[in-house]
């Protein structure tokens, strides 16, 4: 005999007392930035996390070969990692949940920023782990290695954000993928043409700064557009 079920059947459920007051009190909970980041991280798709970890494993595997070219191979793969971040940030637009999220108490801009920080920070950790490994097994310094990994990542993120903002759904995903492939190819092409010259110069720092500026511009433009629904 299920006593709970029997009790439920025997006695009517009493009406809630002070439920609305209780709910009102809970509704005023203040949300800290960290809470929001952790919440968003919890709802990032598992395939994004697993894909990122698989990427780290692949980078370390390539680096462990000790080939001098390894850094170029790995840096031309970082756009794939960036693509995962862009896809995660453009998730609301892709699945049409923007309207719902805009009507929530947490401003959509803040929620998007929290999601970008969650994914971006994880990716930064991955690149930060890969850079010393690549540097140790190769011949390039840690800073220069880090810049080479980060520059294509930031370039792809910026391009991806711009493209997914202009084109929604499948079209945006295809264009984002095309942007990643373009940056991959560009990296390998630059290496084949001016690889040695770049090794000796400080151009990597210039490229990194440009990529950082571009990313900042794109991030600001993305946030501006999240204020209200772009709809006609």
């Amino acid at each position, binding site marked *: 005999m299920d006593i709970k079920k029997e009790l439920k059947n025997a006695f009517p459920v009493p009406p809630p007392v002070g439920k609305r007051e209780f709910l009102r009190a*809970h509704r005023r909970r203040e949300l800290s930035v960290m809470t929001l980041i952790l919440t968003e991280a919890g709802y990032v798709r598992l395939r994004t996390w697993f894909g990122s970890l698989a990427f780290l494993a692949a980078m370390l595997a390539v680096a462990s070969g000790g080939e001098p070219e390894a850094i170029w191979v790995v840096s031309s793969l970082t756009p794939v990692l960036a693509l995962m971040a862009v896809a995660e940030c453009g998730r609301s637009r892709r699945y049409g949940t923007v*309207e719902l999220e*805009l009507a929530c*108490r*947490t401003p959509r801009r803040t929620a998007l920023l929290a999601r970008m920080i969650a994914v971006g920070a994880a990716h930064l950790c991955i690149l930060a782990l890969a850079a010393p490994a690549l540097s140790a097994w190769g011949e390039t310094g840690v800073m220069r290695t880090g810049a080479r990994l980060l520059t294509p990542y930031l370039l792809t993120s910026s391009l991806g954000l711009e493209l997914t903002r202009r084109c929604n759904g499948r079209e945006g995903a295809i264009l984002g993928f095309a942007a990643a492939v373009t940056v991959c190819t560009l990296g390998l092409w630059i290496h084949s043409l001016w690889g040695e010259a770049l090794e000796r110069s400080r151009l990597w720092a210039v490229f990194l700064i440009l990529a950082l500026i571009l990313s900042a511009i794109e991030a600001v433009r993305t946030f501006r557009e999240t204020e209200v*629904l772009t709809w006609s």
Partner: protein
Amino acid sequence: MELTVRGLCKYYGDKKAVDNVTFTLTEGVNGLLGANGAGKTTLMRMLSGVLRPTAGTVALGGVDVSSEDYRAVLGYLPQELGYYPDFTGLDFLMYLASLKGLSRSHGKRRAAELIEFTGLGDAGRKRIRTYSGGMRRRLGIAQALINDPDLLIVDEPTAGLDPGERARFRELLSELGHHAIVLLSTHIVSDVEQIAGRMLMMSFGRVVIDEPWDTSRTDLEELYLKRFGGGEG
């Protein structure tokens, strides 16, 4: 508490989607009727803070639509419900509960309550991509209620629901109307006829009828057809 709308306009170039709309709503169910293209959805979006008006103000108990305090007490069900197909119904509700500022434990409890209430039951643990249209609609209704709103804005809430579900949802709205402002936009006259205490009708972006409604009246359809029979396409 009152929802005050003053001189609300939304223009797209020369087109006036919503044109100088002014009204005040109090607690209870308020019906919003109008033909396709009358501006109902645009109006609902502005009242939900989702779309910025060209001009005019919206305030709930003096709190402006753009503020966090307004959104904290708002429940909104858009006409087209977006969803994350990989999420389960419960995940989706929990996610929106967190964006609405509910604590994890409170959100979890409320999500479970609403999953049961909307009749989703075990489907709450299944991915949304496996849901039928009616189940998604019920999930949409559940998310609109998750923060126990003081202002509930629902756009075509019963589209895709079977007659039994529609009747249940009408009862629910009627019950919510005792302590919240409910604005219900629909094409289905019978959805509002029996429960709305106030009726607003829109035509070409303007509110052309705004008057108390006696729920014992049964001539709303006639009135509606007389006014909008040809549509505004």
